[in-house]
């Protein structure tokens, strides 16, 4: 099969989203199974793309309309994109199954449509090779995320969504100014050609443009001064959507940030932008962990923990070394799995026991043993205990930070991990040693998904080598810009 079929990753969710209103006319009961079917198909396509890219070692480049880059838009599905497109699709599939139980609020057709468009936006952000196209996919992701945050139609949901809209609006405007500056200076929007020409750009324009783009993407990627919307949105959004935000919407923003950062790496004042990002990332980790410490709502607590992990990944990307980028990519994979597990379990508790306050988790170990086990494994893994997956990536990030010579950043991040251990062990104590209530029946499907993710966490923890080799290749895809430029067949454009 030709690699051009990889464009189905974008086409399939888009066309299915448009079929949902038609389907609603036939019968409302069909919508949720349709969602599961489409996400399963998407996972299949993503798995095929993943297999293709990792066996041949060559990226798949899709040309839109048969126009060669830099004239047409190209999708670049290298090792990184193949891995994350698969993660996006697989998590979406699990969440489509979870939506069967978790989403009872009407209108379900709009939920399904927005769900598919959110998946489409994240896939597009990861796959695209053009910065304006990246902006468009970012806006598709953002606008669907605004709508899905407000989906429950409570006051809190509307408030959270409004915060997100205002910050996201400022962020996307700044991103667009950055794109305008780079286009005005280089005359191209294609990432490979930007990378080729970046050495020649006026250093001030490059610095300001890059800083504006990073500022804009920091809203999506939840970095410190711009992440006030995130805990609110995580708390107020429907439970499956929270998982999707944490597991891949943020990752798409982070990846876009890392990609644009590294394609501009030959500009003169690049290291000053890296320093800015490094400070933002460290502050994100420390402030988010300290905020998590005083939360009473477990979903909000894990939201802060998720932000802190994102800060850690950004720290790794901002080091500017190959080890850092590879470790950051590895942490992205691990974090996607662990946070999907945690938010899925907490969301399930919240719909079963009606609320996610810490009191509801009293004695959960006796009431819902398998769910409690899943939360415990997720919590222990996030803290970074050996034999669980996050340990390996955290160690690598800290080693890479020390190698790059940022002792203060490593010390602050380690301090934050101690804080993280405190609030997670408080949760574990409440769950396993609290007063017990009556036993509650657990849904088999949800438990099966939890156990699947749990096995992944432990399997990567005990045999990290395979996952590490995948992440290493994916990280190289971002770091090795010369190879990236060589892979994209640019045609000469007449003046």
């Amino acid at each position, binding site marked *: 099969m030709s690699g051009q079929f990889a464009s189905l990753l974008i086409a399939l969710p888009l066309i299915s989203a448009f079929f949902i209103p038609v389907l609603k006319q036939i019968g409302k009961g069909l919508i949720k199974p349709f969602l599961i079917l489409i996400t399963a198909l998407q996972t299949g396509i993503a798995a095929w793309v993943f297999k293709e890219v990792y066996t041949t070692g060559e990226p798949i480049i899709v040309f839109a309309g048969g126009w060669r880059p830099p004239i047409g838009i190209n999708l670049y599905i290298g090792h990184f994109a193949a891995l994350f497109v698969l993660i996006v699709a697989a998590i979406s599939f699990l969440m489509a199954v979870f939506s069967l139980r978790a989403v009872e609020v009407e209108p379900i057709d709009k939920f399904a449509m927005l769900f598919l468009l959110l998946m489409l936006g994240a896939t597009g952000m990861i796959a695209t090779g053009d910065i304006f196209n990246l902006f468009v996919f970012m806006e598709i992701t953002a*606008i669907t995320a605004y709508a899905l945050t407000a989906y429950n139609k409570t006051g809190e949901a509307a408030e959270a969504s409004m915060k997100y809209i205002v910050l996201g609006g400022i962020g*996307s405007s700044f991103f667009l100014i950055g794109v305008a500056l780079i*286009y005005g200076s280089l005359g191209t929007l294609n990432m490979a050609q930007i990378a080729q020409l970046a050495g020649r750009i006026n250093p001030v324009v490059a610095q300001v443009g890059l800083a504006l783009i990073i500022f804009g993407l920091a809203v999506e990627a939840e970095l410190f001064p711009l992440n006030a919307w995130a805990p609110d949105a995580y708390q107020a959004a429907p439970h499956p959507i929270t998982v999707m935000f944490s597991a891949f919407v943020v990752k798409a923003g982070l990846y876009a940030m890392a990609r644009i950062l590294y394609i501009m790496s030959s500009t003169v004042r690049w290291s000053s932008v890296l320093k800015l990002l490094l400070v933002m990332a460290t502050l994100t980790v420390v402030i988010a962990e300290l905020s998590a410490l005083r939360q009473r709502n477990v979903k909000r607590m894990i939201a802060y923990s998720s932000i802190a992990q994102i800060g850690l990944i950004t720290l790794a990307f901002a080091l500017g070394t190959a080890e850092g980028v590879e470790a950051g990519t590895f942490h992205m994979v691990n974090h996607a799995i662990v946070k999907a597990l945690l938010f899925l379990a907490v969301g399930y508790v919240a719909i079963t026991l009606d609320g996610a306050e810490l009191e509801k988790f009293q004695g959960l170990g006796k009431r819902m043993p398998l769910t409690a086990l899943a939360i415990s494994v997720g919590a222990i893994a996030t803290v970074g205990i050996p034999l669980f997956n996050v340990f390996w990536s955290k160690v690598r990030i800290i080693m890479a930070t020390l190698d790059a010579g940022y002792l203060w950043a490593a010390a602050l991040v380690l301090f934050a991990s101690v804080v993280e251990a405190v609030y997670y062990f408080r949760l574990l104590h409440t769950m396993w040693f609290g007063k017990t209530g009556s036993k509650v029946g657990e849904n088999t499907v949800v438990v099966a998904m939890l156990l699947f993710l749990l096995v992944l966490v432990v399997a990567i923890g005990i045999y990290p080598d395979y996952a590490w080799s995948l992440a290493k290749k994916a990280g190289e895809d971002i770091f090795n810009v010369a190879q990236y430029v060589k892979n994209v067949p640019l045609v000469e454009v007449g003046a």
Partner: protein
Amino acid sequence: MISAYYFGSVALILIGLYAVLVKKNLLKILIGLGIMETGVNLLLISIGYVSGRSAPILSEGIGPNQAVDPIPQALVLTAIVIGVATTAMALSVAILIYEKYGTLNVEEIRRLRG
């Protein structure tokens, strides 16, 4: 000498940003966002302007050499639509907020804390 287009568009962006940061009424904040988007679009368009050339439509007497840069126009067309969609989304959420809270003052819309 900075061209009036650049100066004007950056001024619009700053006015919008000022409104978003300082105003207390939610609708004024959304108006600020709208002004900011307009400023960004104007900046994009003025980057593609080549002095003395006409609209990039190939017709009698106007060849590729007499046209301004067409790419920013395509970008702005997209960005305008995105801006309108965001504004529509924001206004519907603002209606929802007014129904639930009975106010549009951002200092009183504070149920989510911590």
